[in-house]
């Protein structure tokens, strides 16, 4: 095609022109550079030396944590940090030693902190002391001349209004660790950032944190601020509203004072956790300053780790509380009818072995109702044998979800264990041990032996019995709201259903009536959970006294005391489980705790101690306050 010939176009000449033009342009650029860098270079060099920018990061106020009614549980308060700008000190080490002298801190500790942040740029403030007192701030200010480069910054710190209230649920915040910094989950965080490390603080870190602001301050060579270049405002974190009720939580926390154990209350219809208390507790505020070795030792004491959330992480044999679920299995499977009677002589013989009832004199003739009310072990030994361990497993694990974490989402949850022939075959190595012996079924029928659960699982299981057979997933957060009032997340009014149980409503009714009997019948083991009669709220529940086997030591520890109950009996609004480690009898130790929580829930004032009116029509003998 002719158009592609280019006879008349002198391309060579044109490219030469282009090259010339190109060279000319670059020459102009070079000329300008010459002017800037060579002719006026020293002027700009001077200006650049007096031109220093200090990036100051402004930590965002963390989101609040509130209870279900919007009452603030955790807020922020101004706190003072002592930072150090290495660049501004002629002799950093000397300055730090002077600071150490003033604060009474070992100088080596401070220097070590400085080296740890050594990668940070010279002009960037490095954190030396967190949350210091006003007195110390005043001392530092007074000795400024000795402390070049030391600056005091005001940053928000956590203010735990109610002290250690719901410590395990709320959790704590602490400086991000080196390991966490390397984790992609924490991309965007910087050394020295404070993040949620436990509980809600950790789980909702993403919402609570907010966005860091920054301020570029222009300082002269002496380090004095001469202007501001640009700045980004910090964005406060979002607020998290819990399902926890502050009043109820306080009662639960108080009830465990001086004890080891757990109390958890849940709305059986929604799965809302109303209170979650574990003892011993820690005070989240200890993490705002440096945690000393002594404090750590106290926290993770081998005798009772204060950081353990016993509601979700503590595993205990459920004891007689488990009988409710064995009864549900037995009735559903038709191995027993509600009216069938058994004779309890105080023990049962299995081969040559004698399995005792907790009442050594025996309960005489008992039907299902009486067996639950009086917590007759012999009745359940028999029923358990008729069921066999695998059917117990099927109901407890496959239906009521025992032995499975609830998915509450705060911290690592323990799963507990429901034994079965399959479990034993898998768990043990020795062929002898792999076999399930029928005799092992007996303790399992009364919630003893290898079986363990967490208090939260008990509450979930019992809720399913009393709410008409729905296993709900417990939840602890109601909603998340941004600082400017935008709703980010809200749990619906309907619960998250794990499973709808296909159980006969009549069977559930029978169990509920029996549990009311436990509290209200004159022979009942759990009458100390009853609310004063005048209020007309009847309570149902089941006691448990779990033996603590300690084979190694041979010493028999005190039993774990359990009570799991609900109210009002006809239309349950709350399910509560109380556990006292090595507390003794469930009816005597755990039931009163549950009663406190229920009374608080229904707004029933504590009766004055001296007027402690008899709760029952007839005072019951103390002996009967025991079970197992």
């Amino acid at each position, binding site marked *: 095609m002719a158009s592609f010939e280019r006879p008349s*176009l002198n391309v060579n000449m044109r490219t030469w022109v282009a*090259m010339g033009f190109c060279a000319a342009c670059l020459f102009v650029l070079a000329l300008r550079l010459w002017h800037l860098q060579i002719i006026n270079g020293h002027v*700009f060099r001077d200006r650049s030396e007096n031109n220093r920018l200090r990036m100051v990061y402004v930590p965002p106020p963390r989101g609040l944590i509130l209870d279900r009614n919007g009452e603030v549980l955790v807020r922020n308060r101004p706190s003072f940090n002592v930072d150090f700008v290495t660049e501004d000190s002629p002799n950093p080490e000397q300055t730090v030693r002077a600071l150490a002298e003033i604060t009474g801190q070992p100088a080596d500790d401070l220097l070590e902190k400085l080296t740890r942040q050594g990668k940070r740029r010279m002009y960037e403030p490095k954190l030396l002391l967190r949350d210091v007192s006003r007195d110390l701030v005043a001392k530092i200010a007074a000795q400024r001349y000795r402390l070049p480069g030391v600056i005091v910054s005001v940053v928000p710190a956590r203010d735990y209004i109610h002290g250690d209230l719901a410590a395990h649920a709320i959790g704590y915040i602490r400086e991000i660790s080196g390991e966490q910094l390397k984790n992609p989950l924490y*991309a965007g965080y910087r050394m020295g950032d404070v993040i949620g490390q436990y509980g809600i603080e950790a789980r909702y870190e993403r919402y609570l944190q907010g966005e860091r602001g920054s301020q570029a301050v222009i300082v002269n060579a002496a380090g004095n601020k001469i202007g501001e270049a640009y700045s980004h405002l910090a964005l406060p974190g979002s607020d998290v509203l819990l399902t926890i009720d502050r009043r109820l939580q306080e009662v639960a926390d108080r009830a465990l004072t001086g004890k080891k154990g757990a109390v958890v209350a849940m709305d059986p219809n929604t799965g809302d956790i109303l209170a979650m208390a574990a003892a011993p507790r820690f005070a989240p505020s200890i993490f705002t300053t440096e945690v000393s070795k002594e404090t750590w030792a106290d926290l993770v004491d081998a005798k009772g780790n204060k950081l353990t959330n016993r509601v979700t992480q503590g595993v205990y044999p459920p004891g007689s509380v488990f009988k409710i679920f064995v009864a549900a299995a037995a009735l559903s499977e038709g191995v027993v009818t509600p009216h069938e009677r058994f004779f309890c002589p105080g023990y049962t013989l299995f081969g040559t072995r004698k399995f005792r009832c907790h009442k050594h004199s025996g309960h005489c003739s008992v039907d299902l109702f009486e067996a639950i009310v009086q917590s007759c072990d012999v009745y359940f030994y028999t029923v358990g044998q008729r069921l066999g361990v695998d059917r117990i497993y099927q109901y407890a694990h496959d239906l009521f979800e025992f032995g499975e974490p609830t998915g509450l989402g705060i911290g690592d949850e323990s799963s507990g264990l429901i034994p079965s022939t399959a479990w034993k075959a898998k768990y043990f190595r020795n062929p002898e041990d792999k076999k399930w012996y029928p005799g092992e079924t007996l303790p399992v029928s009364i919630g003893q032996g290898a079986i363990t659960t967490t208090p939260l699982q008990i509450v979930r299981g019992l809720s399913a019995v009393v709410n008409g057979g729905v296993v709900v997933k417990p939840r602890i957060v109601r909603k998340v709201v941004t600082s400017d009032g935008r709703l980010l997340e809200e749990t619906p009014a309907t619960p998250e259903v794990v499973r709808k149980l296909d159980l006969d409503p009549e069977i559930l009714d029978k169990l509920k009536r029996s549990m009311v009997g436990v509290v209200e019948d004159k022979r009942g083991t759990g009458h100390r959970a009853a609310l004063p009669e005048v209020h007309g709220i009847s309570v149902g529940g089941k006691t448990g006294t779990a033996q603590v086997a300690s084979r190694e030591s041979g010493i028999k520890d005190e039993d774990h005391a359990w009570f799991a109950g609900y109210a009002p009996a006809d239309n349950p609004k709350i399910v509560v489980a109380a556990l006292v480690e090595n507390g003794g009898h469930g009816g005597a130790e755990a039931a009163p705790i549950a009663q406190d929580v229920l009374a608080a829930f229904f707004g029933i004032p504590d009766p004055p101690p001296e007027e402690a009116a008899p709760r029952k029509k007839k005072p019951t003998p103390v002996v009967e306050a025991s079970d197992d």
Partner: protein
Amino acid sequence: MTSLDKRVFAHFDWGLAFFTLLVPLFGLVVLFSAGYDAEGTVNLFGLVNVNFPSAACLKQGVYLMVGLIVMCIGIAIPTHTFYRYSFFLYGVALVLLVAVAGVGVVVNGSRRWLDLGGFNLQPSEFMKLGLIVTMARVLSKRPPRDGRSYRFSELLVPGLFIVIPMVLIARQPDLGTALSLGIVGVGQILFVGVRRKTLLAIVIAVLALAYPAWEMLHDYQQRRILVLLDPESDPKGSGYHITQSKIAVGSGELFGKGYRQGTQTQLEFLPEHTTDFVFSVLAEEWGFVGCLFLLGLFFGLFVSMLRIASRTRDLFSCLLAFGFTVQIFAHVVINIGMVIGLMPVVGIPLPLISYGGSSMLSILFGLGIVQGVSMRRLQYRPS
């Protein structure tokens, strides 16, 4: 079919390849310093975390490798394919530009990006390629009737091809890209030739249109041009960039403050010092000597490209090579001119140096096409 046979490799332009590699490698060295953050861990595209003190440098390294693959694709595509699909490319780019005006993503107040589920596409980047190819086709298909230079009537159609995308891009608003697009198109026309009278008429017409065009500019664009004339008048606003950048460049003096010793950049006086203002990092830390070195490298690159253009046997290939030369050249001059206060701050990256994936890929693709033109210069005969 045999577009890459043995003879083709005989015309591989080693000079072009040399500068194509050297410039971005030097860029990586500069970026290492510009993006330095001792504490930084780099999250590579959401896949892995790497401990590396300069995110910009590491990512740019990855972009460079991908870019080299893209360049090989540019080399492998036969030149006549570009000829054949030039209008198609232009059309697609135009549709995308219209689409971006409607449903584009707004970033920093301008609507430049199309969100294609996961990655963002900048249609103006496409248009750069589309325009170069289309202009090469239009001009080579219709050379000046007198065989020497265009008259006014012959320029109407090519002019329209330039103006339509320019207007669309200027309205995003992305003045810098619109401007560079215009320069490329006009450059290609001028390369072929325009009658002196016609040229004069056009220049006068453009000057006459300048006032209404000025009125059409956004406030911030007007301000940027005004600030160029007197940057000190607004040291914290629009003038901040230019003032700080000039301090950075000037304080470099003859030999610079030393690698990673630039206080202006290391102290974060300069926002965007890894992208549009990367040249000031170089100037501050390497001084006049370093600047001349980079200018020299670019000059070498341009000379290689122009030499390829001059050795072609057909006008299409020639204009293709020349078009890409003008594109890179315009970017270099505008960017450096902006950094040293000779031109308004228009937000154009420094080719092959500034941090950024799309610019790197599109420039390397263009360089691949030019290399392809060189390799096929004896073989190519459009049908």
